[in-house]
């Protein structure tokens, strides 16, 4: 039986009906059309599906959509202001920290949550902060340089 779910995504309020077995990433991509969030492993290892719930990075493949009841969700689509990219997005582009780009939305959101909490990190801190985001091509070292 579908259940009513109220939540805010990228500052927009939504009221939708979802099956209890829907994960948050399925809701975001399939119901709300926010396909910027990527699904990699589906079991919480890769971090590609990282979104923010109330400002904290979580893996949206391991959260039931209904567990986001009343929460504020931020996806990669929520960072840019109109045509102006978020400084972190600019920085990732300027440093060439993207090859295939599949891990980038998750990387950027993990980094954002981390920098919001610790504005002046060391390189070690940054490596630690994005340890939960795997990259299968070459961008990992470039991400650290940002």
């Amino acid at each position, binding site marked *: 039986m579908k259940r009513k779910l109220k939540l805010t995504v990228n500052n927009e309020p939504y009221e939708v009906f979802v099956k209890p*077995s829907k994960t948050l990433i399925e809701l975001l991509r399939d119901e709300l059309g926010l396909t910027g969030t990527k699904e990699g492993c589906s079991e*919480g290892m890769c971090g590609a599906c990282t979104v923010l719930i109330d400002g904290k*990075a979580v*893996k949206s493949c*391991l959260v*039931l959509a209904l567990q986001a009841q009343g929460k504020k969700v931020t996806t990669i689509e929520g960072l840019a202001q109109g045509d102006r990219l978020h400084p972190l997005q600019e920085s990732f582009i300027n440093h060439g920290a993207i090859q295939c780009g599949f891990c980038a939305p998750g990387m950027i959101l993990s980094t954002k949550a981390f920098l919001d909490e610790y504005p002046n990190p060391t390189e070690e801190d940054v490596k630690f902060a994005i340890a939960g985001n*795997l990259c299968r091509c070459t961008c990992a070292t470039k991400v650290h340089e940002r």
Partner: protein
Amino acid sequence: MKEFEYFSPQDVKEAYTLLSQYPEKAKIIAGGQSLLILLKQRLITPSYLIDIKGISDLDYVRYDDRDGLRIGALTTHRTLETLPVVRERFFMLAEMERRLASIQIRNWGTLGGNLCHGDPASDLAPPLIALKAEVKLTSAVGERMVQVEEFFEGYYETVLKSDEILTEIHIPVVLQGGGIYLKTSLRETDMALAGVATFIVLDSTKHKICEDVRIVMGSVGPTPLRATKAEELLIGEKIDDRLIEKAAQIASEDSEPISDVHASEEYKRQIIEVLVKHTVKEAITRARVTSHRSGGIPS
């Protein structure tokens, strides 16, 4: 995932009622960081899912000098990692949390959920057992306290009954001693191939004789295992390198690892030997510099 009916009780009483309404058919979900994987793989297919993640009454950490640390079951890993009272008085727990899975998992996953999952590779269980922690299991008809050491029965099996909820973790106060948890994993965020938690108490005058020690091995058996023979070897003795080597060998022999795709049984036994050596040495160092912080190091 197979479809299920979903409930999100607002308090524990409502949760007990739901559990007793659907005996054996309902499953509790908290952070779901392990459970959702089992549901996706259809390893379990409950008809009813009772989501307790939103019950704020079970999200607390309280410290008292006489009573010790009481942690609500829905406390997240990240809270344990960052909370000052934990960092100051139970540093080995904060330190363990910092290397548990990834920050995303720690932000959403709960301590109660980790224990109830019953995975022998849990990073949380060995240090809790080393610190003589117990858990409170509550149902509609009452509650009982169980030592964390007695909580696990086998792979993914615990003594939790189908009408019970793990509601609290209690760690008694330890006035002196030092401890550490170390593990080896393939990548930083992977499950432990093997892990060892050691907590040691030295004599209070010369800090040389081992008065009490617990050595707990994770991921090398169906449940976390105490290295009791190694502990017995150390208790009452003045500890030197030769004795530590011996204890590490005995612990390794007493571990019960199985070969899997990640590592062979022999390799895991070697890891245990190395980790026991390192943790005992480091625990002694910490015990000598901390007379008042259980599992802590000076900040």
